[in-house]
């Protein structure tokens, strides 16, 4: 093929046309305007190719949009499907309110949350809708009271769910009243538990611009100079690269994005912590997520009546509810220490230790549970241990409370351990993990250590912050587990440092399900 001379003004652009662009221009030259779908069927290209080349041609201002028709399609979400079987949330709320009224019991928001096992945020929308309709009112003390015997909104919603459950259908052609209900109960940001979902289908048509007409006419009449797109092995082998010309690229275009293989940003941070601790001579320990109260609390000398042990602080396991018997001699020694101090030199907590309760299974609530298991498994002396353990707390989830999170903690055992080595170790953590030697030690309280210390550091970027807590394990902890040397227990609160390093303001984003966020987060050094 011999390249032709061309005197056209569009010479440069013309010669850089991609074959896909040529196909679109040819079609639009025949018939304009044409819809995106028609372009695909005329040219035989797939829709991704069509929209890609349309993008290029728009950028070159060869084509323009002539019309844009948006149609909305409504369908049921998985919540909607569930509602179609067991009734909508507003129906459940209205029914509960009616039932409570009949029984003369006040239905508070808190009570309703318990009955439906939902959070306040899930309920505020539906309650608002019922209130707006006037079928319930909020009385003194936040009590929900029905004001009518039936709720029209509830029945209308039910009919709509039933109707749409047969398949997605048009939104625009529905009467105003239905559209209003659909709007109220459709899924959107912050409202993921709604029954409807509205999708927009956009149908665009395109026509040639003045410039585009000239180029298209040229393409049709003169034909395209077909430079080669890709240098191929064939061109190289047969030497025809010498006579052929490569088609120039538009190198100003953004490159296609690459889905790279990368570590998770928070993992990167945790890996760094892990490596630092290993380099300081710490050995990693692991423990089970489902743990009994014995290792999670009793061995740590938290009395069984301790407020941090009730159902508002710890997740209990439904089934199995109890572990098998706790091995001797630990169970007897720990129980006796709680009762009267055993031989530890302590007076003990002085209450009847419940040997059934100690087997109750919970989700590990503190990393120290891993340490207590290590203490009872013939640890090395001298020895240094750490774990980065997933822990669980019964907390309302918000920007500063996650359902589960990592605790970095550990123990140091040795004959030369004392309060001054404890402070020295904390100073070392400050240096290695927060890059500072400016520290303050504050008296603290943990049930399992005495003396107990809180470590505050002046981070070079973040200012004064609490980095962790530590202490010497109480003899009531070490002796019943067979440890006769002093032991430091330490724990570091690294979430805040991690969040700042990753530019995150909400702790839930450490475990986000948003892939864009994960891909775009820079990996800190």
């Amino acid at each position, binding site marked *: 093929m011999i390249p032709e001379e061309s005197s056209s003004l569009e010479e440069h652009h013309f010669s850089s046309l991609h074959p896909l662009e040529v196909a679109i221009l040819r079609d639009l030259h025949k018939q304009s305007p044409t819809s995106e779908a028609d372009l695909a069927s005329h040219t035989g290209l797939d829709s991704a190719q069509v929209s890609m080349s349309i993008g290029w041609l728009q950028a070159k201002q060869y084509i323009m949009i002539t019309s844009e028709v948006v149609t909305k399609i409504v369908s049921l979400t*998985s919540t909607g499907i569930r509602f179609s079987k067991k009734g909508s949330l507003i129906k459940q709320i209205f029914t509960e309110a009616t039932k409570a009224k009949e029984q003369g019991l006040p239905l508070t928001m808190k009570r309703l949350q318990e009955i439906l*096992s939902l959070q306040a945020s899930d309920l505020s929308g539906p309650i608002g809708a019922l209130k707006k309709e006037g079928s319930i009112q909020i009385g003194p003390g936040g009590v929900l009271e029905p004001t009518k015997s039936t709720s029209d909104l509830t029945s209308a919603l039910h009919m709509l769910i039933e109707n749409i459950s047969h398949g997605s259908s048009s939104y625009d052609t529905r009467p105003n009243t239905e559209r209003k209900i659909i709007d109220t109960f459709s899924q959107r940001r912050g409202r993921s538990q709604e029954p409807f979902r509205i999708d927009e289908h956009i149908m665009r048509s395109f026509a040639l611009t003045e410039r585009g007409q000239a180029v298209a006419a040229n393409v049709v009449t003169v034909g395209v100079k077909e430079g080669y797109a890709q240098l191929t092995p064939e061109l190289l082998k047969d030497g025809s690269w010498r006579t052929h010309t490569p088609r120039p690229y538009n190198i100003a275009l953004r490159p296609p994005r690459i889905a*790279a293989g990368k570590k998770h940003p928070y993992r990167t941070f945790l890996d760094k912590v892990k490596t630092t601790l290993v380099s300081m*001579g710490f050995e990693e320990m692991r423990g089970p997520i489902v743990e009994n109260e014995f290792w999670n609390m009793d061995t740590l000398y938290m009395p069984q009546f301790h407020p941090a042990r009730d159902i508002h602080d710890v997740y209990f396991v439904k089934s199995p509810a109890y572990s098998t018997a706790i091995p001797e001699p630990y169970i007897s020694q720990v129980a006796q220490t709680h009762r009267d101090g055993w031989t530890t030199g302590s007076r003990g907590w002085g209450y009847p230790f419940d040997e059934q309760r100690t087997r109750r299974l919970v989700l590990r609530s503190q990393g120290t549970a891993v340490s207590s298991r290590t203490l009872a498994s013939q640890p090395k002396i001298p020895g240094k241990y750490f774990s980065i353990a997933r822990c669980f707390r019964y907390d309302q989830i918000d920007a500063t409370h996650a359902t589960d999170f990592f605790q970095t903690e550990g123990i140091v055992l040795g004959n030369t351990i004392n309060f001054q080595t404890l402070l020295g170790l904390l100073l070392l953590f400050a240096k290695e993990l927060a890059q500072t030697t400016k520290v303050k030690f504050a008296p603290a309280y943990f*049930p399992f250590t005495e003396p107990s210390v809180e470590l505050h550091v002046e981070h070079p970027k973040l200012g004064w912050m609490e980095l962790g807590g530590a202490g010497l394990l109480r003899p009531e902890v070490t002796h019943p587990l067979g440890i006769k040397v002093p032991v430091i227990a330490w724990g570091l609160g690294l979430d805040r440092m991690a969040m700042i390093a990753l530019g995150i303001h909400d702790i839930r984003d450490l475990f986000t399900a948003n892939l864009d966020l994960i891909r775009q987060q820079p990996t800190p050094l």
Partner: protein
Amino acid sequence: MPTIDFPKQDLDTLIGWTFPIEELDKWLLLAKGEIKNYDPETDILKVELQDTNRPDLWCTEGIARQIRVKRDKELRPYLFFKSREKPLDQINVGNGLDLIRPYIGGFKTRGYMLSDQELAQLIQTQEKLADVFGRKRKSVSIGIYRLDPIQFPITYAIADPNIAQFTPLGFDKPMTLPEILECHPKGIEYKSTLIGQSNKQHYPLLTDAEGTVLSFPPIINSREIGEVQVGDKNLFVEVTGTDLRMVLHTINILAANFTDRESTIEPLKVLYPTQTEFGESIRVPYDFRSEIEVPQEKINAILGDSLTLNEGKQALVEYGHQVKSRAKTLYVKQPPYRDDLMHPVDAIEDIAISTGYNTFRTTLPSEFTVGSLSQSEIISDKVRELMIGFGFQEILSNILASQDDLAIRMNLPDTAIIEVDNVMSLTYNCVRQWIIPSLLRVESSSSHSFYPHCLFEAGEIVQPDQKTESGTRTLNALSALLAHPNANFSEMHSYVDLLFYTLGLSYEIEPTTHPSFIDGRIGQLTLNHTPCGLLGELHPQVLDNWQITMPCTVFELCLDTLPIG
């Protein structure tokens, strides 16, 4: 951890010194307190108290005492344990209370002119003690009354719920005890504290010699004599509860607080129908403190210091203790408002706090240890490195998930999962038994993110296992997901194949069926004939359940079964 509010000026008055606000931080270390906020406009300080074992510190008086003793170098005397000649008024305890709320203690106090501010402080102290120390009034609750209308002796006894009635605070007509439990907000809130064995509801009542009701502990006071107001001077204070030592400890804290406000304490005698650990007749406030021996050698071993016996003694005295020294040992008696010295180490911490943590030398642990990672972590790190090299993005998810995600959406309605008993939110009611749903959660939230999606997560899962101590097993697993228009079995199979090859393992793949996957496109992975994972194309119904409109191929592998290392 309790947080309390008080005017800074009140603290200054109680200590007898006006603090520069910037020095307060340092002094609060003595009370394990931390300033959360100070508003110079209102002069209100908000302080968080760390020590859940020191309820005496959860009030202005307590914080002031702890700072004052350091400045005064010794404790002011608290004389309410000293016996007085004159016969005491009594509280008589009836039978049957041992089933629900056996103990009571109380005292009279005179000369305490309640101002607005002091009443607010008194109510705050009462609430913190009953709520946190008393576990929401279950083990300890406090009642305060105007003293003058009360005729002694007082009776604490089980009442007949059909007869007894009185007008509770906040209401204006007499109610029966069951009515109070059903209708009064405090009745509804604290009803459960009076439910005994086999769900029996109990009704303890406090009445005076004339039969006038004082209160229905721990629910609510009577409106007539149980409504303390600004200007009241003479008060009757009582504490009821389930643990005698805690009841008496609470009494002692309150008695110390009133003493600090310069009012006098008049003890009372409590007569029990049977023996208690402190006798049948107890003079309240009661001194149950005993001496604890703290050898000098132990002090220096723990603190790593060489304190003289006298230095140790002085540090303790300046922290409020009464200390005697004899033959290289300190004999320590804690101040009347404390009950937390269980072991000599507790006294040794007090020496360190009194001395000041920041005055100690710091040294590094000198003994050599070798650092290492666990076998599980080494394997996990290895496969993570490989998956990243294969071009997969690492994901990190919550381990708690919903049953909906883990089972229902996966077409596995009957699969066994570890469920939480006390559910807070249906979104987080189960521990994940596999990782694939975690990856699908990401996929279903990320259809706007450009394709292909190559995701993986290595992490912990929990599966039921009868053979273990807890009936469950925490396992390490690796899971990966491919999502793009042409994602298929064969593409993912290539990665699995490469993974095993690189790890030097030879695996088999056998056809199987699984409700989450398309029949004929699902294989079980085995190593030495032991199942170790799954590889397959997810069923369109599963994708639909997740509202995913992109084909997904996944594999999941149990890392604990890999014979590596």
